[in-house]
C-alpha cells in the first residue's frame, strides 16, 4: 500500500484515494505545430522507466483533487520528495 502525504490537504492518503499520472516534467510544447513528428511522438510516448528514483505525478483524487509531484524509488517505493505544483518547493516525507 503506497501512502503519500498530500502536500495540499496535508492528509496521509492511501493508494486507493490517489490516482497515478505517470512520469512528471513531461512538458507540452506551446506550439506543437512547430515540432517534428519525431519530437511530438517522443513527447507522446517516450518515458523513463528507471530501476531507482523517478519523478512522477500523483493526484489526491478522492481527497482534495490536487495534482502534485513526488520522487519515488521504483523498487522500494520509498518517497524521497513531495512537490507542489503551485510552489516549486518540496516537503520531506514523514512517517
Amino acid at each position: 500500500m503506497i501512502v503519500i502525504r498530500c502536500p495540499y490537504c496535508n492528509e496521509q492518503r492511501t493508494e486507493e484515494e490517489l490516482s497515478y499520472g505517470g512520469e512528471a516534467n513531461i512538458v507540452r510544447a506551446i506550439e506543437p505545430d512547430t515540432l517534428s513528428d519525431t519530437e511530438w511522438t517522443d513527447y507522446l510516448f517516450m518515458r523513463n522507466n528507471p530501476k531507482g528514483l523517478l519523478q512522477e505525478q500523483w493526484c489526491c483524487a478522492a481527497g482534495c483533487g490536487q495534482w502534485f509531484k513526488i520522487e519515488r524509488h521504483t523498487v522500494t517505493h520509498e518517497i524521497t520528495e513531495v512537490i507542489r505544483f503551485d510552489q516549486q518547493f518540496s516537503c520531506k516525507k514523514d512517517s
Partner: protein
Amino acid sequence: MTSAKHGYRLAAGGVIDRQRAVSFSYNGDHLRGYAGDTLASALIANGVGVIGRSFKYHRPRGFYGTGMEDPNSMLAVRDAYGFEPAIRAGQVRLSEGLEACSVTGWPSPEFDVAAIAQLASNVLGAGFYYKTMMWPNWRLFEPFIRRSTGFGRLDSAISRREMHHRHEVADVLVIGGGPAGLTAARQLAHSGLKIVLVDDQPRLGGALLWEAVSFDGVPASEWVDRTVDALKADANVTILTSTMATAAYEDNAFTLVEQRADEHGVRAEHHWKLRAANVVLATGMVDRPLLFADNDRPGIMLGSSVRRLIGEFGVAPADRLTVYTNNDSGYLTAIAARKAGIDVPVLVDTRPQGQAIHAAAAEQSGVRCVFDSQIEGTSGYKHLKAVTVRGSSTVESIRCSGLAVSGGWTPLIQLAGHRGVKPVYQERESMFVVRAAPPGWHVIGGAAGSLHLTTTLAQARAAASAIGSDRGVPMEQGADVSVDCMSYGSISPQWIPDCGARSRMWVDFQNDVKVSDLDLAARENYVSVEHLKRYTTLGMGTDQGRTSNINGLAVMAGLTDRTINAVGTTTFRPPYSAVRMGTIANRRDGDLHQPRRYLPAHAIHEKLGGVLEDFGWERPDWYRSNGADRESAVEAEMVAVRNHVGVFDGSSLGKIEVTGPDAGLFLSRFYVSNMATLKPGGVRYSVMLKEDGVIFDDGVVACLGPNHFLAGPTSGNAEAVAGWFEQWRQTEWPTMRVAVAPVTANWASIAIAGPCARDLLARLEPDFDISPEVFRHMQVREGHVAGVPARVARVSFTGELQYEVSVPSRYAASLLNTLLERGSGLTPRAVGMEAWLRLRLEKGYIHLGSDTNGRTTPLDIGMGGIVAKRKDDFLGKRSLSLAFATSEEREQLVGVEAIGGTLQAGGRILASGHERTPCPSEGYITSACFSPSLGKSIGLALVVRGNERKGETVSVFSDGSIIRCRLTSPTFYDAENKRLNT
C-alpha cells in the same frame, strides 16, 4: 481402528478443558475430544494414524506437525457456520458437532486404490508429466490425472459466517503472542502508544503453552496470565487472538484474518487492513525434518510437534517413541516424552557425544542416547513399526511406533520476505535470518533465530526500548526475570545421510519430491532455486514448503558444490497462509459488488415497468408498459418519438460547469470545435481527443452566460472528463483563470423528443419564450419550468425536435410524472435506452465507444472539415497530421444497409473479392438495428477507405452467415435536418 500403538490421550497435562468434552466426526466416525483441542490433537488422541495420501504416489501419510507446517493433514471441515474445502487439521479448533472428512485417498486414506502409482515411482520422477504426456495430446491424460490429484472438496452451501472488513491504524503491531511478543507488548503498554498484538492461536503464550519453562520459579503459564492481564488493563492495547497476519505491504500495511469462534465453530471472520508505524515480528520458528530413507511413514513427526502434543493437549503420539536429532532440542523431546510416561527406546544423534549438552539429562530420565549415528531406514506401511539405526560400527533395529525428528530450526520470516527482504543464511545456527529488516521493523526471538529464552526476552526488551525512544514516549522499565528452561543448544547439520536409498528420502511430503528428484534436476541443470522449485514442484504445495524448502536447497547446494547462501531461497509472496476468496470478497456480491448508481427518478422507472440494466447507472432498457416483449416495446417507443412525443431520462449525462474569465479559451483547448466563440444561449456539439489524436469523448457545450459554460460529456466519461479538465488546469495551465465544477448528480435531465415536444414543454409553463423562431435548435435557456429552476437545452440525439429539461434532482420524479400525466392528447411515452440508441442510429449520430474505438480520430468520423478550419491549437491536434492519422488505409465511419438478411453489431466486412471466410477483413459493423422508419436492417460501420466507397456493395460475415450490404452515408433519416429544426 484405535490401537494402543497409535496416539492416545494422556491421563493428565495440557491446557485443554477436560471438563468439557466435545463430540465431532471424522469420515462418519463419531469421536470425542476436549475444548482446547485442535482437530489434529483430537484425531491423534483418538488413534487416527493415516490422515491422507500423498499427491503423486498416494503413499499413506500421518500427522507430521501439529499446525500450519504440517504438509499432510488436509481435510474438508464443516462447523455450524461454514465449510472449509481444504484446511490443515492443526489449524482447526475443535467445536461441537464439527464434521471432518478426508480429501485425499479413494475410497479412503486407509485404503486408496491409486496407491498403485507407487509401483511406478521409478518412472514418475521430476518432470514426468512434462516429458511424457506430450504425445499425442495432454488433454487425453488430463482428466485422469486431475481426478487422482488435488486437495479439497467443494460444497455449494452458503456460509453463515459473518464477514467484516476493518481498517485500523496503530503505532505498533506485534505479530506473535509468545514470550517475545508478550514481553515487547508488555514493555510498550501504558506508554500511550496504540498497540495491536496478534497471534494465530486462540490462547496467547506461544511455545510457553507446551515447553517446560518457569519464570522466577513459577510456571510460565502464570507469567503469561499476569502479562496478558497487564496488557488488557491498557485501553490502547488491542489483542487479537486466532488472527493470522497474512501479508505485509509497503508503508507497513498488513492484512490480518481474525476468526471469532464460539463452541459451535467459527462464527465470524474479520478481514483487517492495518497500518503500523512500528512492527515487532515475533513469529517464532519451526522445526525441520531430517532426510533418511522412508522418512514419510505415518508415526514420524517433528520433535517440537511431539512436545506440543504432550504439553498443550495432553496427547501422546505413540507409546514407544524413538528420537532422531542433529541438534540439542531433540533431547527436550525425549525428556518430555519420558515425563509423560512414553517409552523412549533410544535417542539417535548424528553428532559426536561432546556436542550434546543435554545428554546427561536425557540419560538421567532413562533415555539411551547413541551418537555419530543415523537412521538408515524404517519399516511399517500404514504405521511405523521399526527404525534401523546405523552407528559408526553397529547396525541395530529398534522397534517403535513413533519417531520424533528434529533437523534444526527455521525462523518464520515470511512476512519480512513479503517486503522484499532477502534472507541470509547463518552458518553456525544453519538457519536463514533477516539481516536488514524493513524500516520500523524489529525481528525478535525465534524469528530472529534466538535459541535461548533469555536471549529472546532481552531482544524483546531492546526492541521495545528502541521503539519507545524512537517515538519519544515514556516506558515502564521491564524487570529482568530469571528464566529456567533448557536451551535449544547447537546444531551440526547433515543434509544428506551417508546411508539409505535416495529415491526413498522425501524432501517435500505433500508433493512427493525426493532426494533423487533433486539429483535429476541437478543433472538437467535446473539448479537455480526458482527453477528447482518449478521443475520438481518442491515447496509448491499448500504448505508453501514450510518443512521442505531449506532441506531442498541445502541438498541442491551440496549437489552443485555451492554454499547455501549462494543457492538462496525462493521468494516469499503473500498470503502467508491460505485466505479464502470469500473472506476477501466479504459482503461484496450482488448489489454491493460495485457501487450501483441510481437515477433520481428510479422509483418512477420501476413503477412504469422499466427493465433496468447496468449502463454504469441503473437505467431502463425498455418499459414493460410499452409492450409485451423487448422488440415490440422498443418499436412502440421509437414510433412514439417519430410520430408524437417520447420522454427519456438522461439524468446520467455529465454536467460540468466551467467558469471564469478564461473559461471559453480553456474549453477551446479541449474540443475540436472552437468553444471560445460560443455566445450566451448557444450550444455546440463536438468531440475531444487525447494527445494521441484519438477521440476520448463527445458531447455538447452550452454557454449559459458570460464566462459561464456547461460541458456535457457522455454518462460513462462524466467523471473522467472532469478529471481531465482539472489535470490540465493544474499541471499545464495554472495561470488560466478558470474553475471546473462537476455537478452531474445535482440535475435531473429529462429529454422530450418528437413532433409534439414543444407542445409538451409548453404544458410545463416555462417562464421564457419557446417559440421556434426565438428558441432555436442548438440553443439553451435558463429559467423556470413547472415552477422550479430549470435549464432547457434544445438539442437532438434522435433527429426529432427535442428539448432536454434539467431541474434539480429532487424534482426528477415529479417532472417525469408530470410529463407523462400532463401530456393527454399528445400521448407521450416513456422511452428506454434501446429505443433511444436506435433512434440516433437512424439519424447516423455516433454512440461513443460503439462507433468509435481506441484508434478512431475525428478525421475518421467526418469531422475533417472542422479540424481543417481550426487555426489555433487543441489537445491532440498535432497527432492528426501524423502518418497514422492521414493514412489512406484508415477505417472510416459509414452507413450500412442490408440488401437481404439482418445486420448485427460486430459483423466483419469481407475484403473486396472475397465471398467466403476465412479471409482478410476491411472493417466491422459498429451498431445495427432494424429501422421501423425505413423498414430495413441498417447499421454503422468502420470500413477501410469508407468515405470513398459509399454506394459499394460488400459482403458481411454476420453471426455465422454472409449477407450482402450496401455502404451508404451514415445518415439514414431526415438528412436535411428539417425535423429537428421545426
